[in-house]
């Protein structure tokens, strides 16, 4: 295909030197191919390289409380508490820990695990509380890892739960994790 007009070789004196009309034209197909390939590459790497950002909002901290955050009164039948333990496991209970409606149960982060629980409770709570929606309290323990927190926040988004908060785990809840064997320091 290349049509670089090369001089017709030998330069025989006798032969008639014919000059081609479309002189100096180079076939650019390969060059264009390459250029477009590179364009695609740079386009994709610039826009796809950006990592995702998951926005988190924490409640305002009032320093006057002096570590003792006042207990916010939540109707028992509206709140489910998720205790994030070690080994990628969650212990959840419904109601209050002292008198739970559903006692602590251990599940994992899979679709069949925590998501099933959340969806079930999301449907159940408005029926028992007169149309009010579910409140999820997330309490990561010191031995849970960042992936667990991101996963659970992600589940909130997937199951479309609007009311949730991250709060500090209590000593008695750590005990729950210990008795369920999901508070292991690796």
């Amino acid at each position, binding site marked *: *295909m290349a*049509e670089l007009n090369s001089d017709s070789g030998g330069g025989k004196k006798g032969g008639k030197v014919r000059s081609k009309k*479309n002189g100096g*034209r180079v*076939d*650019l*197909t390969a*060059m*264009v191919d390459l*250029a*477009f390939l*590179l*364009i695609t590459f*740079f*386009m994709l*790497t*610039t826009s796809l*390289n*950006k*990592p*995702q*950002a*998951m*926005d*988190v*909002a*924490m*409640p*305002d*901290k009032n*320093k006057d409380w002096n570590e003792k955050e006042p207990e916010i009164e939540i109707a028992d039948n509206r709140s489910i508490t998720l205790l*994030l333990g070690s080994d990628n496991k969650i212990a959840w209970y419904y109601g209050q820990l002292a008198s739970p409606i559903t006692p602590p149960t251990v599940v994992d982060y899979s*679709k069949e695990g925590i998501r099933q629980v959340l969806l079930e409770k999301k449907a159940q709570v408005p029926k028992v509380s007169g149309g009010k929606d579910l409140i999820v309290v997330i309490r*990561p*323990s*010191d*031995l*849970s*890892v*960042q*992936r*667990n*927190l*991101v*996963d659970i*926040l*992600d589940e909130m*988004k*997937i199951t479309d739960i609007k009311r949730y908060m991250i709060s500090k785990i209590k000593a008695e809840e750590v005990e729950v994790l210990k008795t369920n064997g999901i508070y292991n320091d690796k």
Partner: protein
Amino acid sequence: MGKAKVKRASTTIDMTAMCDVSFLLLTFFVLTATARQPEVMPVDTPASTTLDKLPDDNLSVITVGNNGKVFFGVKNPEVRKLTLKNMSAKYGVGFSEEDYEKFKGLDEFGVPFKQLRALLSLENDKRTLEIQPGIPVDSTEETSNELYHWVQQARLATVEFNRDQETKVKNYQDPGPMKVAIKADAEEKYSIMNLIIETLRNQKQNKFSFVTGLRQEN
């Protein structure tokens, strides 16, 4: 009468213009693509289904990895320089003009403030993870919690920078307060995450983002 000559249609198309355009675009993309500098501390972030992208500018990133090492970086080099100026006044450590210029090129760092000068004097490739022990973080608001002051001074520097730009640049759009992102390793324990979150909450930086990778819903 001349003999009717059948013109042979050429199958080759003139690609000069196409080539011009494609190379113009190529040049554009090459120049706009910011060369990614190798990270000092590579972090394996957890995945989420979030599709929101992390902003490029007006951002500072707290990186946590390697079993609790905390690194800090401000995206905008000008704000970065202002931040160091503020910090230098706060901690009473002086820096030369050369140090400031070097700091502008430092994407992220993880040394206590006292060791920052020594870090800046090193070559770029000598600033390895081994010599950077991480920025001190604790649950107080004192000078011992250096991360607290880095974030606070970066926020103040952002305000200062934006105000300055407004007077200098016509029609400058103030991007608002600086955003904070936490880029933590998936295996990082919540105890260290809690310290960082509380550090942010103590200065009423209640909104922040977790940097995540992408995954499918299931």
